[in-house]
């Protein structure tokens, strides 16, 4: 019988670095502790606030999808610590290459919420300027962005910069040839790139055991790339691990690989129905390891999350939700002739002719509502 050997070893809970346990108690980790020695309670509150804010983005976007305002939404529910912890370890000059799921990262990086949503509404392919936020736009072709991050990091070496690039990727992505080739190039050229893999246990309906027979973090050393396996629901551990990798990159140490072991609590996207392929036990089990609840417990245990602080966190989340909703609903539809925009940087005899023909064709329908047909070329 040919059956994937769904080796649960692909994701054992052993050997995973952790700084905050699921119940909110602190855990000592000799390797990681030094990287977050400076993180005081105030900073922990900010990380908490970040997580609450991006969870709210998720809730709001999911609702907007149900209301028909978005065509699709890929929830990040459960992965807030991985997104927040990794992003907050980076400097503003570090360049990010995300997948489609790092919408929380994009928000924290400063991208406009409506811009982020424009992709999921279908009004634009992507919604922010990569150079303004040092963050590439969402990548849908699985694994592709890891090569871009590696090439960018090769460019950093050529330019003599001390910044880095980071590629986000999923557990499923680790099966793609491109991810392998990225590691080969990154190792050969000692490129300052961080491979940040969110092992959320699922690639749509496929469990991580189908992609990886043994823990994913075990792959990188085979290329000479050091790796760390951390609790991806532990924002401090993720922050520390990413700082470890960033420090290596900045000091000429080359590439690093991080496996953040987390869990996709929601559907793959709003188009997916996970009840078809996974049980509730697993969900309950992971629900008890919620990344936000544990920080809250930790802070409350220390008496560092009073009502005022909670209220401020809630206000921020409310503001985010309002801005998101408002911005999304008011996103203008793109102008018809903008389909021809930006295919090329300059003129193109064939496409320009098609545009002219289509403009003439549309003119035959004589719009009466005052809208413009023009794309940016006009």
């Amino acid at each position, binding site marked *: *019988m*040919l*059956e*994937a050997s769904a080796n649960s070893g692909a994701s054992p809970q052993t050997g995973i670095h952790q700084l905050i346990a699921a119940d909110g108690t602190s855990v000592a980790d000799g390797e990681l502790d030094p990287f977050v020695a400076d993180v005081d309670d105030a900073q922990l509150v900010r990380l908490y606030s970040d997580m609450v804010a991006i969870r709210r983005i998720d809730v709001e976007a999911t609702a907007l999808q149900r209301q028909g305002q978005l*065509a*699709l939404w890929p929830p990040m529910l459960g992965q807030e610590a991985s997104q927040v912890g990794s992003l907050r370890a980076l400097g503003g000059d570090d360049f990010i290459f995300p997948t*489609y799921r790092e919408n929380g990262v994009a928000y924290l990086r400063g991208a406009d919420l409506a811009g982020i949503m*424009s*992709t*999921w*509404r*279908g*009004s*634009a*392919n992507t919604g922010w300027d990569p150079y303004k936020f040092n963050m590439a736009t969402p990548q*849908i*072709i*699985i694994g592709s962005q890891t090569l871009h991050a590696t090439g960018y990091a090769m460019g950093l070496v050529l330019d003599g910069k001390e910044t880095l690039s980071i590629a986000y990727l999923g557990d*499923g*992505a680790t*099966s*793609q*040839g*491109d991810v392998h080739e990225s590691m080969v190039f990154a190792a050969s050229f000692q490129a300052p790139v961080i491979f940040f893999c969110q092992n959320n246990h699922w*690639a*749509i*309906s*496929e469990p991580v055991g*189908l*992609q990886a027979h043994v823990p994913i973090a075990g792959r990188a050393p085979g290329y000479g790339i050091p790796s760390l396996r951390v609790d991806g629901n532990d924002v401090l551990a993720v922050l520390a691990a990413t700082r470890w990798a960033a420090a290596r990159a900045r000091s000429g140490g080359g590439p690093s690989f991080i496996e953040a072991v987390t869990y996709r609590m929601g559907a793959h996207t709003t*188009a*997916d129905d996970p009840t*078809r*392929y996974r049980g509730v036990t697993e969900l309950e089990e992971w629900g008890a390891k919620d990344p936000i609840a544990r920080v809250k417990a930790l802070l409350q245990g220390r008496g560092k999350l009073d009502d005022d602080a909670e209220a401020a966190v809630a206000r921020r989340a409310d503001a985010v939700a309002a801005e998101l909703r408002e911005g999304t609903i008011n996103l203008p*539809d*793109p102008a*018809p*002739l*903008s*389909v*021809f925009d930006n*295919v090329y940087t300059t003129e193109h005899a*064939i*496409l320009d002719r*098609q*545009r002219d*023909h*289509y403009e*003439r*064709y549309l003119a*035959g329908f004589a719009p009466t509502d005052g809208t413009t047909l023009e794309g940016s070329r006009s």
Partner: protein
Amino acid sequence: MSRLTLTQAINAGLRKAMEDDPKVVLMGEDIGTLGGVFRVTDGLMKDFGSHRVIDTPLAESAIIGTAVGLAYRGFRPVCEIQFDGFIYPGFDQIVSQVAKLHMRTHGQVRMPLTIRVPFGGGIGSPEHHSESPEAYFVHTSGLRVISASNPQDAYTLLRQAIACDDPVMFFEPKRRYHAKGEVDLDADLTRAPAMGASRVVHAGTDVTLVTYGPLVATALDAAKAAADDGISLEVVDLRSLSPLDYGPIEESVRRTGRVVITHEASETLGLGAEVAAGITERCFNYLEAAPVRVTGFDIPYPPSKLEKHHLPDLDRMLDGVDRALGRPNSLSGLEG
């Protein structure tokens, strides 16, 4: 006769092929437990087991490449590529291995793969989910390329594709997945129209409208609309994109003298170029006007709010018909 959606018809075709031949195995991402993101393989893992309905790791080159190895061993793999835009990582294996191995080995090794690709736009999806990559494969010698436009054809053509000893790219018009039609599940394959045969799906006398896959339904609507306008369109459903079957088109164009070709793929080197060139070669003396192409533009697929401006619709088809007839149309007054 059963009334089935296109997905149900494909599902039935897969089921029948698996029942008929134990060497038929299905491979792909999420095709097992989930039944595929479009539910095309729904229930098949349950009924045939995970050794014949194989959820593979997330890697298209490997899906095709291991299917090649399985074919070497005598299997008839049916690979599902989840969406059109994800076929490209498997392109090398298709072009350099699947298409060439039979010739490379002097006919000793056969490659009876079927590669199923849900293709085309119009479903409001993000980038890479609405591509029409068929021309790449039509240009690739060694492959056969099919596109079904309705449930009956889908059922029959898929069974023929799987039974065929050559590799077949099987393009499924995903935006018609829910369209229903009558399907004769017990029909004798040997009495069905040949896999390579195109077909006149609407008879007419003024202009020949050639298309395939998702736009066949639109073309039939256009034929109705044109009739209201006193224009009689003959609609040809290519069914086989490679090899092209010029028979019915030639016969039609010799009567009409005018031909419009329409597809979602970009114009430049889209299938319309081949049909236009081929029909001109075959019917030059019968043509009253240059073959007209009504296609997607030469752009990457646009965001979904713009897709209606990229995809040929009934109005654009009729505008093309006007052009073929020399009637007032969007290009009137332009040279060329």
